[in-house]
């Protein structure tokens, strides 16, 4: 794998350089094409249990992929896949997906749950933002318009209590949620269009 961004040094510079340069590397787009099988063309998932990756925060994508590769973070299949790729390849993939447009999933949601979710956000909004799109840090995933079933499954992993998941703050908060609040919060974040966050970030 050739180095894709040889002239980019700092993290801030990386973000700027990543635009265009990453997507045009045929070797990288070939690698990313293998991700499409499960995560949808260009990382826009067509299967509700699978995360959409397009437009997700770069630092988050990079962090979880490296944690899956090392085994620090529990995964079902991702660790077994990423063992086959270098850290550089993983970082390039994170940048590749991060620069694609965020595309909220078209999904049917229970309006009652969405409304209830809006009332019990406090435990989540500190890090994920009020819509799930204005994340406090780059290594926090944006959730606005993510598939509800995927968010439900992520919360189930944290609430299970038996899995290796490095983010203790997230685990603590997931455990503190009442059963009824889990589905409501997932539905609320899933219902967000992503527009507000996009506008604000510009």
């Amino acid at each position: 794998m050739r180095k894709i961004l040889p002239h980019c040094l700092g993290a801030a510079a990386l973000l700027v350089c990543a635009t265009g340069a990453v997507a045009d590397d045929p070797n990288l787009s070939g690698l990313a094409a293998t991700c499409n099988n499960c995560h949808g063309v260009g990382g826009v998932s067509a299967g509700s249990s699978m995360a959409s990756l397009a437009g997700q925060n770069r630092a988050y994508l990079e962090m979880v992929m490296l944690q899956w590769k090392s085994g620090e973070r529990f995964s079902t299949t991702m660790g077994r896949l990423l063992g086959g790729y270098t850290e550089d390849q993983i970082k390039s993939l994170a940048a590749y997906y991060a620069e694609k447009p965020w595309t909220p999933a078209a999904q049917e949601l229970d309006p009652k749950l969405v409304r209830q979710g809006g009332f019990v956000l406090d435990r989540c909004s500190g890090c994920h933002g009020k819509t799930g799109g204005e994340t406090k840090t780059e290594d926090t995933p944006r959730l606005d318009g993510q598939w509800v079933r995927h968010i439900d499954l992520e919360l189930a992993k944290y609430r299970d209590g038996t899995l290796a998941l490095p983010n203790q703050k997230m685990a603590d908060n997931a455990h503190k949620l009442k059963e009824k609040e889990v589905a409501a919060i997932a539905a609320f974040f899933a219902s967000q269009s992503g527009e507000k966050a996009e506008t604000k970030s510009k």
Partner: protein
Amino acid sequence: MNTINRRKFIQALAAAPLASVLTVPTSALAAKKKAKQVVVVGGGFAGATAAKYVQMLDPSIKVTLIEPLKTYTSCPLSNEVVTHHRTIESLQIGYEGLTKRGVEVLHDTVTAIDPAKKSVKTQGGKTLGYDAVVVAPGVEFDFTGVEGYSQEVSEKIPHAYKGAEQTLLLRQQLEGLPDGGVFVIVVPKAPIRCPPGPYERAAQVAYYCLNHGKPKSKVLILDSNDSFAKKALFEQSWEKLYPGMIEWVAGSAGGTVERIDAESRTAATAFDEHKADVLNFIPRHTAGGIAKAAGLTNEAGWCDVVPLTMESAVHKGVYVVGDACKGGTPEFPMPKSAHMGMTQAKVAAGAIVASLNGLAPPVPYYANTCYSLAAPDYGFSVVQVYRVDDNQFVYVKEAGGVSPVDAPAIQRKLEAQYADGWFHNVMADAFT
């Protein structure tokens, strides 16, 4: 990938180190020249993906997909149709998505491929020239070798290993299984498509029996092989979910079926005769007939390919992807799965676009993920990653493997959910 601009893709290919050692023809980026033609033979997961990705990477190429059926029925997850957990319609998709992208879809059957003249002939009387052809015919069944079995008999003794009709026939027979009845699955010598399929089917049938008033029924697997994919995980799931209901007989323990009697639904091995209430006979596989007719198959009946590009090892300009390729044996493990076929198709598409623009192929990436469902909420998987070294497929040992036998309980539930998400994504990735 979907937004890739052809000009940029080709410029980037030209700039890539692999290409830099070659002379990049100035015509590569010329705007006006005769459109190159790519013909894809077969519209399953692999063929559809190849057509789509060639078109996506270089929209100036005219892509024609030739497939006799107007509706594709997925083999993955079809065991859940046998047990009524899914409808057959939920596994079906048409070719409109590819048409919308600009792929020409011709519902016809290819009867001959001429690698010298670079043309294909169809049953409908058409002759199409090509600059590159992708051959993705999948598997064909070998109805010889077991006495009493034939294509005609398969209409009564279903294989349910290809096509909607066969799946629905097996479902109908399972519905009629009496409580206490025996459901026999006959597994041929490897390689077969979907290697864990028969063992997943055993679990699904047991699940159906438990939940449809047939708890005393048994599933007997008569196997021509001595092991199978995800064996420890399957045996664990059988024991846990369906204790005493599923029995597996290895080839070396007398599992190889030599003869069947369709009338009495009896499968005979060298040692015993097994009378079934439902007999599910899966015949041996070979590459689809057109691959053989085109001279692409080896002695074992499968197609050898160049690992860097998926180009046939026999004929230049002919690329073979999917189940028709060599693979799925202990010596050559690249399995015959939808996922594998799709990654092969993407490699072929990249190589074809590069080649038709006078450039060296991009680095190929091969990965496979295959889920099995022992019950609707009980799934596990196998992952393989391959790289190409010295023109050989190499299994990457740092990656891959099966779900752990001692995984936390939630993993089986998660993997069942992910199997469904995987399915929707592969259907969308290949056909829309």
